[in-house]
């Protein structure tokens, strides 16, 4: 049994300690908001927060997250009310949307560290998150907007 705290809720799950957090979230806890994109930490689709730090859930074994607080896209808000989510909607950022949970989690982590990032800081923090649809320029605009709206919460 491994104890996991996800979005403030404690779970006891039966799994091998080597299982990546991504598959525990998706297959064992039914939380499919966190996406698989590469399985190698190359694309950022599976980004979640571990004690406020962005991590790649596809490459993080359960053993390494057992005593940590994990926040996933489902834990950001129940109604899309988080300033980053709101900014994403206002600028109609998503196209297919598949990478956006990871993008949003990286943006939230950025704003918590740097409440008013410039373009360079945004590019540095977000360059681990791939998007094939071409939403980067809107992501940049949305992060600036979220920062103005107090997105660091």
């Amino acid at each position, binding site marked *: 049994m491994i104890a996991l705290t996800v979005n403030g809720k404690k779970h006891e799950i039966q799994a091998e300690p080597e299982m990546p957090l991504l598959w525990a979230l998706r297959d064992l806890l039914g939380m499919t908001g966190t996406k698989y994109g590469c399985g190698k930490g*190359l694309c950022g689709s599976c980004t979640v927060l571990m004690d406020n730090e962005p991590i790649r859930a596809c490459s993080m074994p359960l053993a390494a997250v057992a005593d940590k607080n994990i926040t996933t896209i489902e834990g950001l808000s129940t109604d899309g009310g988080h300033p980053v989510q709101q900014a994403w909607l206002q600028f109609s950022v998503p196209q*297919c949307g598949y990478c956006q949970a990871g993008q949003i989690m990286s943006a939230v982590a950025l704003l918590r560290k740097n409440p008013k990032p410039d373009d360079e800081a945004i590019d540095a923090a977000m360059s681990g998150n791939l998007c094939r649809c071409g939403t980067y320029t809107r992501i940049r605009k949305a992060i600036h907007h979220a920062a103005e709206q107090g997105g660091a919460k």
Partner: protein
Amino acid sequence: MTLSRRAFIQRLSFGSAGLTIGLQLQASSFAPADATEFTPDVFVTLEASGTVRIRCHRSEMGQGIRSTIPRLIADEMEADWNKVVVEQALGDAKYGDQNTDGSRSIRKNYDRLKRAGATVRTLLQQAAADTWQVAPDQVRIHNHAAHHADGKKTLGFGALVAKAANLPVPAADQLTLKPEKDYRYVMKKEWELLDGLDIVTGKAEYGYDVAVKDMKIALIARPPVVFGKVKSFDASETLKVPGVLEVVEMPALSPPAAFKMLGGIAVVAEHTWAAIQGREKLKIEWEDGPNAKYDTVAHQAEFEKALEDPKHVVRQHGNWQEAESQAESRLDAAYKVAGLAHATMEPLAATARLTDDGVEVWACTQTPQAAQANVMQTLEIPQEKANSVKVHVTLLGGGFGRKSKPDYVAEAAFLAHKTKRTIKVLWTREDEIQHGYYHSPSYQKLAATFQKGKLSGWYHAMVNHPIGATFNPAARVGGSADLGQGDAPYDVPHMRIVNGETDTFMRIGWLRSVTNINNAFAASSFADECAAHLKKDPLAFLLELIGPDRHIDLQAEGYGYGNYGETTERFPIDTARLKQVLNTVAKQAEWTRKRPKGHGLGIAVHRSFCSYVGAVIEVSMADNKLKIEDIHLAIDCGLAINPDRVHSQLEGAAMFAISNALYGQITAEKGRVVQSNFHDFPLARINQFPSIRTTIVSSDGPPGGVGEPGVPPVAPALCNAIFAASGKRYRDLPLSQFGIV
């Protein structure tokens, strides 16, 4: 017996996925007098509650079609958008074509969708007129209600259902379609994304996310060479992995590949992690078959041989030989574009469950009807039992053409049938990169002749592995000249467009804008080379090359041009529109403004999918490293139904094209794809992507394509900019092989 649409009364109910199930033929041509809903068209159901259910029959992969189609119908029928519920249609021939590719969802359906909305509006108008016992022209339908000309009486849509349900459906020629000036939603700037809230809260369901009761996960070890087979395998270590349930040998693939399963060994497990581990522990000996001789780099020599004297004439006018013999000067150049994988952020996924009489499938598919047909073929289900195969379309995490090839759907259906379990087949990134339907590598030779300071002749020869070979192994020449090669819109006295032949060793498929990618890269780069040869400004030269305003009549030249399945009457090749997007984008980019040293501007223009796109890119080169400074695009796509999504598709097209131009390269050695994940098939990242400005040129032409036309002009504009900045011409993509990225 001919049945009118009226005779088909759809019984709608909601399954677990909230989708329409079931279709019942009602013998009577009239609904009961107390009907609580009516469905005068396959796309629309109006309930007595006033709720309108609109079905989107095309797949959503980021282009916004689930926002666009329902809004277009809602606007036409004068529904209040707040009372509309959007349903995703099952795969069903009653909707007509559902294959969401070719940039044609609106291009091919605009009038039909308008008719669907107008049908409902006309029936409601008649129902209100009957209620008030006045002529229909005394009733105005507006914003979910019928309004009497007396200015007093109104009836909501819901209140008219019972009466409207018993009226005969008007014929198409009796409908009056709404003029564009009256649109309330269509062509307006601000639309919220239909699935936006679900996406940003993690609730949106993609093919990868489908969860069905008792579902098991399957990963498949596929033959590394197409048409390879399993010689022997040992799964003993696999079966020891906790969570692994069973191992299944898939049927081997025989030509043609089409959409059939690739074969291999499937590992069925309780969860994905067990399936991943189990697959790694398989010991498989493959019999590679004839394609193991294929090496992409070595095959270049075959491409070059194919273009020594290519015989397949696509188009010619004037006399190229004469142009050659009379030329005062000439220019020759050869271009190469590497093979490409789709790299959708969501790899492929399909779930299949056996039902009492057939199978139910959930998949991120661009083409639910082809998926349905593929399942039927795989499980040998006869055509008359088509209704027993239900295909639900989830959201797609990107498509780009890969998800219109339903090989993965067949895998899920086969495994469900074989194991008697509910199975979700997942493709990993490695699977997606290594078992694709690739955009073919290509080789092109261009030549131009000049007389009296003007271009006198244009020669363009191309060879690539034809998509046709995926469906017919005997196909040796691409039918892809219609996509940016044969339809060169240039005013040149002598022209010769030819193609060469080659064998094919991989599955080749269409990928966003298809062979426009390589054709436009070569033609628009070469046009820039011609401008430099003549020491002319590239913009001025392009305008001269396109020549006077006219509709280019390729049929008159004896070239049976396909025009993306459209007539040239409705969608001509209009040089005035080409020049307009060119001038618009040049103005927007301040083409004549002097740039800092080391900077350069590149320009290109291209018509594809019946739309016109101009591109200007600014780059800088420092220490032999490329930096993209700015990107400008202008599109004329006819009526822009959903302007925000037109802009976002252009932004996306630019990024797709830049990723491909910088990095995109699929190669094979011994028939095996070398690349496997984003470390060796990289995509551009946010720090490489500057600002982008997109303009929609106002146009009253019918809606053209939007998803693909932005791609073709971007790579040549980029390389033309590099030439302007550095004097160095790159004719070979991707650019990463030259160390400048």
